[in-house]
């Protein structure tokens, strides 16, 4: 009778090995049967799939979206049609009798569910594996590993566990036992499967004349192997031997090597397995035992975080996020940025804003139109600042203190699963399970109580900030998240623009936004060009608070220049601002000109994007975040001196076609900074943290 035999091979970046493997498979003695070869491609980046199809068109290739070996096997099994299913590593070469001998063994008794080959290393005399055995403390090893093949393992016989390197399974057995446990990912999924086979009465046999040559760790690193073996040991204990789990922590290789965070994470997964596979009563008993062990192994703080996280792992409650903003009571760009994040996340998470001064969440609706109604607010006053009656929480004042005044916030951070430090207060040491630091610019030096390096994740607002974060604090950012910009006026039209050069920038008391320099430059342009003087206007718009001396200086300067077509428009309302953007043809941004301190250069520059969203052609400083917004000569110009500013402006003014082209491209580029992109990026980022909190496993995905 002719049977169909399926051969499953999971491939990961191993075309060179796989080619040899497939060549050897097609040379085996099939004993008159038919072969169905299925390759499950786990590597998202390499071109193995294409190469396999070109070289071996008879092979069926399936793409897996996650690099999960067990999942790939299940995928292969689900589409296989063979009476027998052989599982083979991709870095193996099989002998001619490999399949014939396996078939002989598996069919020797009715209740044999699996047959295992003799796996030798590539030198053909050293044994890799003839099965798997338990050594001690629930560690498993390959039988015969590294021994010379001197005839000791030449007798067929029953073994406890097979290795997935080369095994033949009866479909009947697979159908009864079910899927490979995908939580194991890779390594020990075969041990778990063997146990399950035996539970159902299936026998596992060793077939010494079925020989396979294996390139050890051809495609998986030994570090990966060590990690998954230690992790999966805990998973197996949680699943099958729950009472042994507490005492196995201290014998875990992860514990012995001091890899605390990996141990902690694996243990959470193991407890999840424990609760998922055992009676509630047993689970509770083990949890009680774990209480003491976890405290002993990790210390009280981590133990507290561990069990708090366990609630999230088991889905017992919503994830709690604490957002700390020491400047919550001021309306600023940084506050808007974080409030936008809170607004996006508030429906899925339990969000609490932590502030130091009295303020309300409704204020954010007033200031920025951001609805934080599903968030909570907690005011924690810091005694250090209260005693001194200070309205500004300036962390620099605490450099000489013996006790960190921000410890009160650190203690508060324990109440959350994710603690977000929203406004760069560098002295708050996060004690939550996961922590996130949002950096708008690392303007402080590394002073006393500096704790930014203790955060799990860092978000920056531009590549410029990312760069300086690395240089000043020696910290790498995890995500660059540009601020969301939504300033598009519905009636903006590149063909319907007025002869206006616009600048939108705060009238900073220190003059960092360079409005005086703009007036001077414009004066210079007008002096030499009568047409511009008569027809164009420079509008200097921007916010100003209180008695602003710089604003007075700008006004004086404009008066002094005796030029009528410069308009000073402080504190315009939103509608008026939108109209200005809609009308203006050119946008100027000079912040950072002649500055050598990186802090004084615009870290991002939202107003430039706002202008671009309304088809204004940007002429901006060649520094800071502006470089990421404006592509020189493509959708605007970047200058390095006032001379260049004047030259580029004249070029745009005098060439209507160029102006229109640039304005269209400016609009196109501005879409990169839209709210939708911001929303998608932050949701994606936070959901990844959520998956980590829920004890997900870090895997390569497509």
């Amino acid at each position, binding site marked *: 009778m002719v049977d169909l035999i399926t051969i499953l091979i999971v491939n990961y970046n191993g075309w060179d090995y796989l080619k040899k493997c497939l060549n050897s498979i097609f040379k085996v003695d099939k004993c008159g049967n038919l072969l169905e070869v299925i390759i499950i491609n786990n590597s*998202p980046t390499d071109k193995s799939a294409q190469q396999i199809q070109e070289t071996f068109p008879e092979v069926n290739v399936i793409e897996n979206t996650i690099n*999960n070996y067990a999942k790939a096997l299940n995928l292969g099994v689900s589409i296989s049609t063979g009476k027998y299913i052989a599982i083979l590593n991709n870095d193996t070469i099989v002998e001619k009798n490999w399949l014939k001998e396996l078939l002989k063994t598996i069919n020797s008794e009715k209740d044999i569910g699996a047959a295992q080959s003799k796996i030798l290393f590539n030198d053909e005399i050293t044994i890799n594996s003839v099965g798997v055995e338990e050594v001690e403390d629930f560690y498993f090893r390959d039988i015969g590993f590294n021994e010379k093949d001197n005839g000791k393992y030449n007798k067929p016989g029953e073994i406890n566990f097979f290795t997935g390197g080369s095994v033949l399974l009866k479909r009947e057995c697979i159908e009864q036992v079910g899927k490979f*446990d*995908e*939580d194991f990912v890779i390594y020990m999924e075969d041990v778990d499967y063997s146990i399950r086979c035996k539970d159902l009465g299936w026998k596992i046999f060793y077939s010494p004349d079925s020989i396979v040559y294996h390139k050890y760790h051809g495609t998986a690193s030994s570090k990966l192997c060590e990690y998954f073996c230690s992790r999966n040991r805990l998973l197996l204990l949680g699943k099958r031997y729950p009472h042994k789990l507490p005492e196995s922590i201290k014998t875990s290789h992860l514990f012995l090597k001091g890899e605390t965070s990996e141990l902690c994470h694996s243990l959470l*997964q193991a407890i999840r397995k424990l*609760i*998922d*596979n055992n009676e*509630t009563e047993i*689970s*509770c008993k083990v*949890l*009680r035992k774990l*209480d003491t062990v976890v*405290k002993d192994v990790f210390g*009280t*703080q981590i*133990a*507290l975080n561990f*069990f708090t996280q366990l*609630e999230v792992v*088991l889905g*017992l409650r919503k994830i709690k996020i604490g957002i700390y903003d020491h400047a919550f009571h001021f309306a600023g760009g940084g506050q808007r940025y974080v409030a936008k994040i809170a607004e996006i996340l508030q429906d899925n998470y339990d969000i609490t804003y932590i502030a130091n001064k009295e303020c309300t969440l409704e204020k954010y609706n007033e200031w920025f139109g951001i609805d934080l109604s599903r968030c909570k607010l907690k005011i924690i006053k810091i005694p250090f600042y209260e005693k001194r009656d200070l309205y500004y929480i300036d962390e620099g004042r605490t*450099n*000489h203190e013996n006790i960190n005044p921000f410890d009160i916030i650190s203690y508060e951070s324990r109440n959350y699963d994710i603690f977000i430090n929203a406004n760069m207060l560098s002295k708050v040491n996060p004690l939550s399970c996961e922590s996130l630091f949002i950096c708008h610019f690392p303007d402080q*030096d590394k*002073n*006393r109580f500096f704790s930014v390096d203790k955060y799990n994740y860092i978000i920056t607002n531009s*590549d*410029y900030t*990312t*760069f*300086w974060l*690395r*240089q000043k604090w020696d910290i*790498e*950012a*995890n*995500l*660059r998240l540009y601020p969301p910009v939504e300033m598009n006026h519905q009636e903006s039209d590149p063909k319907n623009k007025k002869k206006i050069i616009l600048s939108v920038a705060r009238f900073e008391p220190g003059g960092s936004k360079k409005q005086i320099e703009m007036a001077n430059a414009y004066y210079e342009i007008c002096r030499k060009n009568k047409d511009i003087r008569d027809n164009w206007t420079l509008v200097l718009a921007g916010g100003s608070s209180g008695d602003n001396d710089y604003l007075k200086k700008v006004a004086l300067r404009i008066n002094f220049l005796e030029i009528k077509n410069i308009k000073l428009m402080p504190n315009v309302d939103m509608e008026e601002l939108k109209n200005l953007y809609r009308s203006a043809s050119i946008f100027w941004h000079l912040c*950072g000109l*002649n500055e*050598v*301190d*990186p802090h004084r*250069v615009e870290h991002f520059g939202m107003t430039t994007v706002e202008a671009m969203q309304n088809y204004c052609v940007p002429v901006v400083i*060649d*520094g800071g975040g502006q470089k990421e917004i404006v592509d020189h000569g493509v959708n605007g110009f970047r200058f*390095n*001196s006032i001379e260049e500013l004047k030259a580029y402006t004249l070029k745009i003014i005098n060439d209507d076609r160029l102006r229109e082209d640039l304005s269209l491209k400016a609009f196109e580029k501005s879409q990169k900074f839209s709210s939708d992109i911001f929303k998608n990026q932050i949701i994606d980022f936070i959901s*990844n943290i959520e*998956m980590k909190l*829920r004890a*997900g*496993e*870090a*895997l390569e*995905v*497509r």
Partner: protein
Amino acid sequence: MQRIVEMVNEKGSDSERSFPGVEIQTELLSIMLQDEIKKTELKEREINELEKMLASTLEKLQEEKIYNQELEAQFKDMQMSATWQIQNKFHQKIIERLLKQGTRRRASYDQIIKNIRILINEGGRAFCNSVKECVLNNKYIPIKTVRSYEENIENMWRDRLLLKQKATLEFKATECPLPIVVGFNVIRFHVREGAESPCSFPELKNEDSRRLSVAIKNIMIMSKGYRIPFVMGNNCYDAEYLNEEEIKWISNDATILVHSEESTSAMLSFRLLSFYRPRTLELYLKASANREANTASNIRFVPLTEINSKIDREIIGREITSIIYHIGTEFF
């Protein structure tokens, strides 16, 4: 303390003859009490003196404020005057055109004007000192414009190692050849061991929380027998005096900026001292940015298989809550 020890010794010899314990204790107590009283008196005196000092400083501050306001008013009047307006226009139209900002000519002009002001306002001696300082220290900095951030500040980190030098706890002369190019040159002082704060070392009894790595003094850049001007950039602290000599403490990765109108081989020399412990100083020259767009990768946390819906969440939840409570009460 010495007195107490002596007393104990004296009494110790007497003790062989009488019952000394009670007497010694009484006398010890009375001495300690007197000490405490003296200390309290001293502290009170100190507080009184400090209070007086504070009051006089506040008074002075008030006077200074009034004086300041008067000066500001005078200045405003001056600005409104016709002479000022004419002078301003002259400055705008003639000086700004002939002597452009950032040129050597302009720097010389500014220096001359400054010195004339010193001569008029502060007298001949101050004028002489100013001229001397200017000539000796080559103080003016003819920087044209900061050309591009790509060429200077941001990019100094893909850099070229110029020198590796051990910094000890004593000043040590250090020299390093400096290939200067046209435009901006950024030299970075990187200290491998990093910077530390004096306040972190209790034995120093110093509350200074600045991050210090090394101190430098007598720093100069010479080329063809002339001094090349430079400016101290990031992470440099203000000059201070140590044994009557001017020194500058720097944090890690301090920079100096040199602007040159020609390419030249120069020599950077300075004296180097390390803070608290020996350190290794590395000098780097210029570089260009190594910006990274986004650090996102295709490694993601993937959820485990779905949990059995039959588990009794309530009981498990109660168990975990009680564990958290138990650990929490222990912790707090």
